[in-house]
């Protein structure tokens, strides 16, 4: 009886273990797994889905877990490729297994829009000092001379500015704070460039959707969100003064003008933290895919084919999803980099 009892217990425990440990089994095709930034997740999912439909034996999973987790998973080799809005720091690159190496590939780009809620104001122009001041907390009221000067004829309310920033640490915040640090020495000395800086003002909301909701429901608010998201939500977007002193609204064209101004170095990591051209929107950034320099043969062929698809046909879908298609010169550079990936023995 005792024997039977123990056997039953052991059996039950084993069944439990098997249920837990046994995920899906492989189906013979090629499976690529990726994880990382949430900002490009909509366009990546679209690309991977279209590609899988055209190539039924290929299965591609992308988890939008955030740039930080994406980099970590990539370094830990739990995924085949990573994705990051904040590229990789030299320190992070140093932690990648040297036998495999790492290549960063810009895949698409996006702008960050400053959105606001002023019921009586149709168009808002913000000078560099004005928006840096707003996010530093030194410009406190909507009728501040710094804002009024750029908006002649616009009736600005005599109400306090309610600043809304991202609460969660994010690539969007990294790019935005990097731009503010580039144009304002006070900002660089104060909060600085970070995925979650210590903002001196404002309430903090979670995610693009949280910031949008807070701005939408609170008159007198201002916040920053991704351009694609702002466009899809129909949020008003301020025109910002760029380095040449022109006021530029976020559009695909102004974003591309910003990208074209940056020289891509050999490692393909370039920041457009303060573009110079007259028609360039000031806050624009690439987003990167992280791949190893060496892959097993089967995976390599599929990955190269997939990346080439994303860089050619895929780019055509960027604009409708609110992203900025890469300039042709950049596409050529990235394609060349894809070609240098090697098969590992």
């Amino acid at each position, binding site marked *: 009886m005792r024997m039977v009892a123990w056997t039953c217990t052991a059996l039950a425990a084993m069944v439990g273990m098997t249920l837990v440990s046994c995920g899906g089994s492989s189906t013979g095709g090629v499976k690529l797994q990726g994880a990382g930034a949430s900002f490009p997740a909509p366009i990546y999912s679209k690309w991977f889905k279209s590609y899988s439909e055209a190539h039924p034996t290929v299965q591609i999973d992308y988890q939008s877990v*955030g740039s930080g*987790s994406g980099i970590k998973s990539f370094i830990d080799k739990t995924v085949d490729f990573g994705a990051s809005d904040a590229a990789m720091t030299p320190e992070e690159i140093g932690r990648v297994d040297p036998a495999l190496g790492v290549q960063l590939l810009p895949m698409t780009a996006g702008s960050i829009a400053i959105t606001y809620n002023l019921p009586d104001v149709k168009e808002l122009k913000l000078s560099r000092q004005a928006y840096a001041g707003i996010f530093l907390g030194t410009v406190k009221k909507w009728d501040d001379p710094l804002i009024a000067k750029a908006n002649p004829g616009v009736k600005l309310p005599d109400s306090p500015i309610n600043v809304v920033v991202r*609460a*969660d640490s994010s690539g969007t915040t990294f790019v935005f704070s990097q731009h503010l640090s580039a144009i304002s020495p006070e900002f660089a000395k104060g909060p600085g460039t970070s*995925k979650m*800086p210590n903002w001196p003002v404002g309430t903090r909301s*979670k995610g693009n959707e949280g910031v949008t909701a807070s701005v939408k*429901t609170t008159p007198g608010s201002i916040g920053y969100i991704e351009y694609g998201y702002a466009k899809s939500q129909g949020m008003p977007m301020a025109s910002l003064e760029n380095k040449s002193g022109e006021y530029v609204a976020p559009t695909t064209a102004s974003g591309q003008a910003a990208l074209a101004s940056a020289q891509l170095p050999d490692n393909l990591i370039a920041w457009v933290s303060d573009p110079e051209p007259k028609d360039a929107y000031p806050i624009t950034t690439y987003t990167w895919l992280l791949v190893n320099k060496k892959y097993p043969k089967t995976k390599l062929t599929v990955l190269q084919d997939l990346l080439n698809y994303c860089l050619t046909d895929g780019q055509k879908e960027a604009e409708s999803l609110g992203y900025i298609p890469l300039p042709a010169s950049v596409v050529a550079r990235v394609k060349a980099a894809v070609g240098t990936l090697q098969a590992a023995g």
Partner: protein
Amino acid sequence: MDVAFRRLCVVFAWLSVLLVAFIVLRIAFAAGPAMRHYGGGFLSGRTWDANRGEFAILPEIWGTLYSSLLALIFGTLFGVAAAVFLSEGFLATVLFGVLKVFGIEFHRVWGKIPEQAENLLRNLIELLAAIPSVVYGLWGLFVVIPLIRPACNWLHLKMGWMPLFGTDLSGPGMLPAAIVLSIMVLPTITAISRDALTSVPPKLRMAAYGLGATRWETILAVILPTASRGIFGGIVLAFGRALGETMALAMLVGNANTVSVSLFSPANTLAALLANTFPEARPSDVSVLMYAALVLLAITLLVNVIGAAILERASAGLEGGKA
């Protein structure tokens, strides 16, 4: 077979205990470097600045306790009231009276209405527990905040000298978070209180009526004290839930590192901080977050222990039915 079943139970019981111990140990282990580096100052400072490597969580500790306490105050008031309403047959009495007007109070179908209506209400309240946290958060953002803003700003304007109303409500803040949180813990309090109230022995109620007590006197002086142990238990459970609630709070509390008694000021909670920071944390920051998680665990444990102690004390004096 009996033996097998008993062993299976023992195995699973120990597994869950081991799991908790394992989680605590892993968190403590991961928090080690941060604990050595920041020590006790982590609990008393106010800056969270990843750029400068300054981390401290006093605002989060304060916000966690303050929001949970506020939610508990609202939640207990409404929750216990709802439990009394549901268990004392107020609704049934009214409906019974209505049916009586039509002379169908003992009808085969119609006669069941009073009981059914109470069941429906009870299920509705318990259904609140099934709503996902993120839905509560969105509801708070789009409904609660715009709804309470005029009243809050009026209070601030007229009574701003009171620390409670010391700031204006610009959007997400402590009060909307506490209101939504109180609705989230309401089903816990109501369900457990109702069970406690219905299990009060009927002889006590009869005795009270027999001594000439009115219905309200009976409820307030006999029924509620007798059920107090169960009600306190529900409150402690709800407190635990409120402390750990993450998503809705991360969306509603404003996530600003301030320590303020003002109901309208944005604040932050430990769980919200973890949820907001963890996904993009650098490896060097993870240890700090684990330290914060450990503090949250300790607070939850402390609350449960204190709750259990209060339960022992309070109910010993209040419960009359033990004799």
